[in-house]
């Protein structure tokens, strides 16, 4: 076996092991516990999209609207910034997404990829702002909106012997 073939065989073996460790049964997530456990690894659903973040722009603190303008402490300005309506909705809808898409999530994680998915809950799950001047149609201006849709980013926790997924972010998206 050539050196390259041996490397590929080892990579395939590790991928296959992760796939079987992840198992047939989708995990349940509690986003508060998830973010507490994996904050150092970048988990940020509650920190950036939690229901307790002040909604309206206020230069004294981090707000959902302020992210449109890149107000401190946000590092970048965005075209859409939303928060979840409440914690139980986050957990319920993220679990629903994971259950419905587990085979794809499992494959992406086993392959070592960042899994990205989107889902329409079919009812109002988030609120926030979009930049009504995006695509160069006018000056940057935050406009309020509500949404039924969200995006999910899922990763494998680093450094564990058993493949363990965590939610990097789940965020309403208008």
């Amino acid at each position, binding site marked *: 076996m050539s050196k390259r073939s041996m490397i*590929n*065989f080892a*990579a*395939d*073996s590790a*991928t*296959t092991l992760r*796939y079987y460790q992840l198992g047939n049964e989708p995990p349940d997530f509690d986003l508060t516990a998830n973010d507490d456990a994996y904050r150092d690894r*970048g988990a*940020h659903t509650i920190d*950036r999209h939690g229901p307790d973040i002040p909604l309206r722009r206020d230069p004294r603190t981090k707000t959902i609207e302020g992210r*449109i303008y*890149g107000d401190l402490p*946000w*590092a*970048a*300005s*965005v*075209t*859409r910034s939303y928060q979840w309506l409440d914690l139980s909705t986050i957990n319920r809808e993220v679990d629903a997404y994971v259950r419905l898409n587990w*085979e*794809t999530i*499992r*494959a*992406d994680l*086993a*392959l*070592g*990829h*960042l899994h*990205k998915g*989107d889902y329409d809950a079919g009812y109002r799950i988030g609120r926030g702002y979009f*930049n009504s*001047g*995006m*695509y*160069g149609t006018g000056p*940057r201006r935050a406009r309020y909106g509500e949404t039924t849709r969200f*995006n999910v*980013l899922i*990763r494998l926790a*680093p450094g564990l012997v058993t493949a363990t997924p965590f939610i*990097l*972010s789940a*965020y309403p998206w208008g």
Partner: protein
Amino acid sequence: MESQDLPDPLRARVGQQRWRPAMYRMRHFMQSYVADSDGTEEIYAEVRRTVITDASSVRQDLEAVEMVLKDEHVPGTLLRLVEGDGNRALDHPSDAEAAAFLHALAQLLRSALDQS
């Protein structure tokens, strides 16, 4: 990622991802790594994590960015990639500024791959 020895569902997923058109792959990258990031350092850190487990998929992402930048597009296409899929608000929204953002992103990917 070579895939001869993988279980069927994984081989199917690899094949599905490998043959995505460049624009599709580019949009997926923007939605995955850029849209909810808070600055370039975070994008770099996440890309590095993928490089460690599957550098070939990051190379394909880089090829997609380079191809999208090389191709001609209907006006507004690059701007929608950055401000729409990437959720990044540009100071002076235009295809030229969006192209500059994507060039910087390509450089970030090269740098992340160079570390492997």
